[in-house]
């Protein structure tokens, strides 16, 4: 019965005004959709096109003179490879530190039976409103002897207060307190309760903050810009900045002498290929993280 009703409804003819409305709204959506899509397709096509086709302006939508020189150059460029490895290291280790520290802070704060909870919460949240700023932080890192070491990237920014509040609010309002009382009666201590009950129940929220942390680790360049000089330590984003934004492609870095000859045409190809290669990891996980998007946005707006 029900099915037939909906079927019939679909066949109802749209009135003229509705048709106009749908035409306009769909055009708007499509227009924006194409505006977002076109540069992406163009960059992909350009990365597979020959340098000469790029320089003479023949690439509009599809690759012209398909080739992989750009990619070959990217994978022979020593700085890019080092940067890539460094970024993977910073993202994996850094996100691990972020998530563990956030959970360590969020769990006790979510417990209503923690003596002094109000004071400790104040101690943490106070820092959201007043912060030392760049220079005092810089001097601190310098005085701690972390300048030009991996620690300067990994340790500062280990906890985002905002994410910690998200997790705390979730644990506080979505995990019933009765669960903890019951566990306590059964002789479950506080850390066992955390690992056996809280963690499994907060999986989705942890996934969301892991996503937040990982993306910001992968994309960040400011800390590296001020704390690192050693070219063996700098992350990919700084290399990208040199090549894409400041347009400095050092071809000495290309080990292959044959490639060196084609410098001029290679430059543009390399840049386009580099864009693709450097955003590949996030694009690979993109389909899997999509289901967390809505949750990810909404989770921040829940008030605890």
């Amino acid at each position, binding site marked *: 019965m029900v099915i037939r009703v909906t079927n019939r409804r679909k066949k109802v003819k749209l009135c003229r005004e509705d048709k106009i409305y749908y035409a306009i709204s769909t055009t*708007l*959506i499509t227009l924006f959709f194409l505006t977002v899509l076109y540069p*992406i397709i163009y960059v992909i096509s350009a990365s597979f096109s020959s340098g000469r086709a790029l320089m003479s302006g023949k690439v509009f939508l599809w690759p012209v003179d398909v080739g992989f020189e750009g990619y070959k150059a990217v994978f022979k460029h020593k700085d890019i490879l080092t940067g890539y490895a460094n970024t993977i290291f910073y993202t994996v280790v850094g996100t691990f530190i972020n998530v563990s520290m956030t959970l360590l802070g969020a769990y006790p704060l979510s417990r209503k039976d923690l003596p002094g909870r109000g004071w400790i919460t104040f101690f943490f949240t106070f820092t959201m409103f007043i912060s030392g700023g760049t220079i*005092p932080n810089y001097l601190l890192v310098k005085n701690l002897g972390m300048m030009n070491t991996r620690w300067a990237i990994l340790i500062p920014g280990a906890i985002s207060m905002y994410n910690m509040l998200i997790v705390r609010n979730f644990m506080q309002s979505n995990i019933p307190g009765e669960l903890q009382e019951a566990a306590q009666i059964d002789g479950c201590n506080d850390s066992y309760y955390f690992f056996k009950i809280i963690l499994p129940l907060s999986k989705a929220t942890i996934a969301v903050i892991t996503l937040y942390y990982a993306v910001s680790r992968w994309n960040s360049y400011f800390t590296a810009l001020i704390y690192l000089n050693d070219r063996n330590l700098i992350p990919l984003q700084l290399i990208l900045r040199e090549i894409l934004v400041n347009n400095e492609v050092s071809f000495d870095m290309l080990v292959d002498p044959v490639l060196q000859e084609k410098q001029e045409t290679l430059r543009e190809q390399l840049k386009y290929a580099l864009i693709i290669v450097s955003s590949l990891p996030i694009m690979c996980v993109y389909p899997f993280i999509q289901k967390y998007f*809505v949750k990810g*946005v909404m989770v921040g707006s829940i008030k605890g």
Partner: protein
Amino acid sequence: MKAKRLAMNQNKTIKKVKARWQLYLFLLLPVIYFCLFEYVPMYGIQLAFKNFNARLGIWDSEWIGLDNFKRFFGSYYFERTIVNTLRISLYSLVVSSAMSIIFALALNSMPWEKYKKIVQMVTYMPHFISTVLIVGILNMLLNPSVGLYGTIYSAVTGIYTPPKDILGMAEAFPHLYVWSGIWQGLGWNSIIYISALAGVDTELHEAARIDGATRFKRVLHIDIPSIAPTIVTLLILKCGSVMSIGFEKAYLMQNNLNLTTSEIISTYSYKVSFSSTVTDFGLSTAIGLFNNVINLILLIIVNTISKRVSETSLW
């Protein structure tokens, strides 16, 4: 008697604390971290009132009172950076909010589920591209000789001399900054409105349809009023951060030709401390502190308004 009861109470508290010792152990690392990386730098704020000398350190540097602030307020950078900061943040606040709301409304009323999914998938994607890449892509596409802009220009006009360089035009900077931000964030920013729209009671739509309301009328009289609280709250909260535009994008988009419109507070403060020939940590800290105080005041004002209007508060 009283003393005894007090002692007993104290004992009770100690007992309670002891019972929760594991929780304090959990807090140990975060507390150390916050002491070291949040509270110790606060001690460094005094640099704003000092003439910093690296040899003497923070405490022993010469106290110069408000001189750093006076220097900032007196320089022509003061007006320029504040105007530039406000210009791009208000511009982007208005345009990006309006567009995300329209986008969400249009997408919500779209009858083709499959197409909707594809549009969402593609438009959310740029959010994950790094700022460096966004600016890099922008620079490459707008390159007048070898970029897409130059290519299309010569294809359309038939002239093979490169067109004007948009990237070097100061008056184009706010537009480039804001619209590239919209390209990157419109889809993502609309998520919150889309999920607010998903919560709209379908019976309202049913009833309106039976009464002969067109889709557009339903958008005007059902959808918009339903998400109005979300819109108002978000707008108010965004107003709280108009003075705190991040350093990263503006810094990357700067070049010598567009500095008159692209120098904002955060980039100026960075340059004062790191990329000028004479590093001036005192001045930079003063600028940072000034900005921090303004942000704090804005946040408090905005939060008070938000509490009154929509009963949503940050704390």
